[in-house]
Every structure is written in structure tokens, then in C-alpha cells.
């Protein structure tokens, strides 16, 4: 009975972390290119809505996931157009798009609050899922969770093992120098923003397609903002995102289970912990600025790029 409980807790933690992993890994790529996208929450919620709408009409989970990707990308393209071509302030634009996304999703989703769908269920990897303990926990997860881990690996591989990834990081650190060498700063950033939006949409869709089979306005409940904090916590390192998401997302699940066992840990203190840790990390980053390391803020984060040629 205790192993079943541990497996349930493990699965609960993966379900709580997956939306954060998607949104944060997308945002990590965007911030590595030097753009601060605060519109993550808005992109997540429209992804949640469109994925839900498509699956309720077609019953096709693949189409629904694709729709969520596209929804996030569309909001992101507005952000990209405004910040890269019209050179608007990234912080203000991101905030505006979060508000817009939340309001638009609430409005467009009015008729869908009474609909329930069939959730995308977990898959059982043959043979591997038979292994005691590890099988039911690691190898019987929802396919979208495996996709989340894969996206983390993909982003890491892209950033650190490809030439384009190197260029993108260079753009994030010094967009004027990168431009002088001849790289297309706007194009790289545009693509990165679209990717970030797609991932945020996917993260939102996880909520409405996997976690609860309903749509409710505001159902992202601030997870987009948590994802933004997560990127800092992870010091812009892809694999650290998983660690951070498990901590941020897992704390809620663990705390709920602890209550069931009557272990009284103050909910408020526990919720504070991940953010306190983020502040500590930020402070230690400043102190290590002189060293060569990948674990620093992309130098041009948030700065508007004016091409001078």
C-alpha cells in the first residue's frame, strides 16, 4: 500500500511539474536570445482553451495538442511583432499580452464551461513498465510528460551543440556584436519567441487535456508567473528547469499529501520556499559574474535592439 502511495505521489508531482516544464523551457530559449517575455501566462491560457475546444469538437488528441501549439504561437507572434519590429518595451508588451490572453480566453471560452472531455491518459511502455516500483512510476506516465522531458533535452542540444544555438546565445549576450558580424538578430529572436509561445501553449493545454477534463477561465492560476521565476531559479540552464519544476510543482502536491497524513507544515511557508531559493540564486549569480560560466543572465535580456546599419 505504501509503494502505491509513493507511486501516486511521484505521478502527482510529474503532473504538477509538466506545465511548468513546458512553459519554462520555452521561456528559457526566449530569454537566452535576449528577450524577456512576460506574456507566458496569457499564452498558456489560450493554449489551454484552444486545445480543449479542438478535442471537444474532434476527439483527436494530436490535433488538440497541435492547436494548443498554434494558439500559443499566435499570441507570441503578436509579442514578437510588437517588440522586434515596432521596438516596444518588452516588459509592458508582455504584461499587456498576459492580460489580453486571460481576458480573451475567458470570453471565447464562455460556451465551453459545461463541456467535459476524455483526458489524454497515460501510456505504458511495454516491458519497461512491468519492472516493480520503477515501472509504474517512470515508464507509465502521460505521453505529454515524456514530451516535456524531450523538449528540455532538445533545447539543451540546440543551445549547446549546434551552431545556431551558439549564435542565439551570442545574440542574447551582445546583440550589437552579433549584428555587426552579420547575424540576423531579429530573425533569431522572432523564431525563439514563437517557440516560447508554442511551449507555453503546450503547458496550458496540459492543464485542460491531462489534469482536469474541464475548462475554466483563469485555470492556469498563475503558473505562467511561476514559470518565469523558474527560469531564473534554473539559472538559464535547461536541465535545471526539471529540478526547479519538480520543486515548485511538487511542493504543492507534497503539502497536500502531508495534510492527509496530518503532518502540519505551514502551507504558506512551503509556498514561499521556491521563491526564496530563487532570490538566493539571483544574489549568488551577481557574486559570480566575473567567472566564465553559462549560469549568468543573458547580458542583453530585455534590451531593445536597434540595428544601426
Amino acid at each position: 500500500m505504501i509503494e502505491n502511495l509513493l507511486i501516486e505521489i511521484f505521478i502527482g508531482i510529474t503532473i504538477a511539474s509538466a506545465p511548468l516544464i513546458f512553459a519554462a523551457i520555452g521561456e528559457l530559449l526566449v530569454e537566452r536570445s535576449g528577450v524577456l517575455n512576460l506574456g507566458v501566462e496569457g499564452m498558456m491560457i489560450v493554449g489551454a482553451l484552444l486545445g480543449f475546444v479542438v478535442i471537444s469538437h474532434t476527439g483527436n488528441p494530436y490535433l488538440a495538442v497541435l492547436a494548443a501549439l498554434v494558439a500559443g504561437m499566435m499570441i507570441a507572434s503578436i509579442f514578437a511583432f510588437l517588440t522586434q519590429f515596432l521596438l516596444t518595451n518588452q516588459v509592458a508588451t508582455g504584461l499587456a499580452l498576459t492580460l489580453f490572453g486571460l481576458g480573451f480566453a475567458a470570453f471565447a471560452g464562455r460556451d465551453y464551461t459545461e463541456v467535459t472531455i476524455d483526458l489524454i491518459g497515460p501510456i505504458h511502455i511495454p516491458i519497461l513498465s512491468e519492472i516493480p516500483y520503477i515501472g509504474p512510476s517512470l515508464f507509465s506516465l502521460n505521453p505529454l510528460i515524456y514530451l516535456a522531458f524531450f523538449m528540455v533535452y532538445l533545447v539543451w542540444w540546440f543551445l549547446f551543440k549546434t551552431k545556431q544555438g551558439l549564435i542565439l546565445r551570442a545574440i542574447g549576450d551582445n546583440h550589437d556584436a552579433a549584428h555587426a558580424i552579420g547575424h540576423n538578430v531579429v530573425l533569431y529572436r522572432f523564431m525563439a519567441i514563437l517557440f516560447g509561445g508554442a511551449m507555453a501553449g503546450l503547458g496550458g493545454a496540459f492543464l485542460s487535456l491531462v489534469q482536469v477534463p474541464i475548462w475554466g477561465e483563469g485555470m492556469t492560476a498563475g503558473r505562467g508567473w511561476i514559470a518565469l521565476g523558474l527560469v531564473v531559479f534554473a539559472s538559464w540552464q535547461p536541465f535545471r528547469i526539471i529540478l526547479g519544476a519538480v520543486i515548485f510543482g511538487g511542493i504543492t502536491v507534497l503539502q497536500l499529501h502531508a495534510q492527509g497524513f496530518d503532518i502540519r507544515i505551514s502551507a504558506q511557508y512551503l509556498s514561499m520556499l521556491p521563491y526564496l531559493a530563487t532570490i538566493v540564486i539571483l544574489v549568488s549569480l551577481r557574486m559570480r559574474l566575473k567567472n566564465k560560466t553559462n549560469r549568468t543572465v543573458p547580458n542583453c535580456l530585455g534590451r531593445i535592439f536597434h540595428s544601426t546599419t
Partner: protein
Amino acid sequence: MSNRRFSSVLKLSILSVVLAFTGSVSADPVKAAFVYIGPTGDHGWTFAHDQGAKYVKEKMGDDVVITTVESVEENSDSERVITSLARKNDIIFTTSFGYMNPTVKVAKRYPDVKFEHATGYMLEDNLSVYSARFYEGRHVIGKIAGRMTKSNVIGYIASFPIPEVIRGINSAYLAAKSVNPDVSMKIVWVYTWYDPGKEADAANALIAQGADILMQHTDSTAPITVAEEKGIYAFGQASNMREWGPNAQLTGIIDDWGPYYLARVQAVKDGTWTSSDTFDGVKQGMVKFAPMNNNMPVDVKNEAMKAIIDLSMGAIHPFTGPINKQDGTPWLAEGETPPNFPDLLTMDFYVEGIDSKYPN
């Protein structure tokens, strides 16, 4: 008389006749506003209030103009919303406990506007409070849960440790215990009224820890969808949630605010409104129940129906002694029932037998 003077006298007389005519045919409609804590699409708490508002509109037609504002958070923003509504409305209903202080503040600043605060306890000359005896509803579902559970663990998803929620927990537990002495309750506090993801997490955690019946004091349909998926039982909260749990829902507590809202808005129109303190239950029709589902045996159904009838006649009280507090100190003597104030309205203790620690 010159032509010009004649035409202006003619225009003036026509104008005054028209004005007098329209003045006597239509009176100003009453303007009523509702402040909601969540979306009407929650199909729970806010949905029920909105049904009440719609009932008023249906009954009063053009005599009332209704404004609703959804998803207003229980922080300083609520004061802004209530203030802006107070400038243009005659009566405002604030439908969540956490709106208490902002409502009191705005009520003091706008003495000519009437305010009604749900589930609160602060009164002013122009501020009423109203609440429903949800604990009577919990009594009925507690009895059903006590009979239907096989694992003897009832899972309770609670929101905030305020008296209303504590009353519900205590009432449900006592009722379940009265039909099943071995029953226990696992209570999880999610510190939100509406967060489908977190409510689902709480539901899953309770089920993993052995609960085979769920009760909730949160506003969304998420817990009952989890119950449906996992093949266990649950109850609809504030509205009939059968659509989301066709096999899971045994019955549900339905908040029927319509008649009360109609009476209050009509009182404003008639000029008879005075500050009041309403605490109605099954007897007055404020607490209703979803139809009993066919997934329970006939004798359980009959027992529940009898409890509903007893409540509607005032023949039983869910809190009837002997009952002790969780720490063993006596609360109610044999046959004694508690007064509204302070026992019920400021309840801040678990009853004896609940083995969770009381939240701080």
C-alpha cells in the same frame, strides 16, 4: 399673440404633456449589482448566485437592471469594484466571505446605497448579512457518505478555515459517524476557493490515501471529475454537478438564492428595505438538494429523504448534544442545540472524533 410666441407656447405645452405622460407610465427601475468571487462558469458557488440574479431578472423584468462582475479577487481590488458599483446602483450583493471589510468600508461611505454581504457577520444600517445553513446540507450528505463508504475514509477538500467551512466539516462528520461509528475523515486545505488544477491534485491525494467518497468546499467541478475518473463517489457542491460526475455524484447541495434576492430587491423598490441578518436553511428553501442518484441503495436514499423532510420541518438540528469539542471539553449537553451566535457563526473548533489537527 405673435406667431413666434404662439409657436413656443405650443411647443412648451406639447413638451410638458409628453413629459407628464411618460413620467406617470414608467418608474425608474431598481439597479442591482452582484460581485462574484469566481466565474459563473464554475458551475458551483458563483453559478448558483448568478442563477439567483437571473431569477430576479425573470420575475421583475424591466423593473430591475442587473449588473454582475465576475472573478473579483478578495483583496484591495474588491474595494475598487464595490465602490464603482456603489456610484450607480441601489443595492449591491457581495457574494464571498473575504469581501467583508471592503463592503463595510464602502457601505459607510455610501449610506444611501444598500449592501448585502454573503456569509459575513458585520452589520451596518445599510448593510445586511445573509447566509445559508449549508451545514444542514452537509448533515444529509454526511449520512449518505457514512453508509456508502467501504474504506471508511471520507475525503474532504476544504478551502479556508473560516466558521462556515468548519461548520460543514463538523456537521458532515457527525452525520456520517451517527450511521457508521468506524468512519474517519481526511481533510485537506487548499487555501483557494477556485483552482481546478489544485482541487484535482487534492482529490487525487485523498484518493491515494484511501478515501472512497469526496466532499468539497471549493467551487469548481474538478474534484467530481476526478471522482468519476477514479470510479468513486462524490457530492455536487452549491450546484447540481451530475453532468460532470454522472456515476460519481450521489446527490448535491444546491444553494437557492433566487427567492431571497427577489425579496431584497423588491424591498428596495418598495422602500421597505432594512438591515437584516438572514440565516436560512432547508426549511426556508435556501438549501436544496440535487435529485438522489440511482447509484445508491433504496434504504440509503430513504434515510436521506427522511433527513431532508425532518430538516424542512425543523424537527432535527444537525448539531444536537451530547457533543464535545476535539480536545474533549464539553460543548453541547444531551439534547441541547447551539445558538447562532457565538457557537455557529464563529465556530473555530473540530468536534470530538475528528483526528486531524485543527488548522491555524
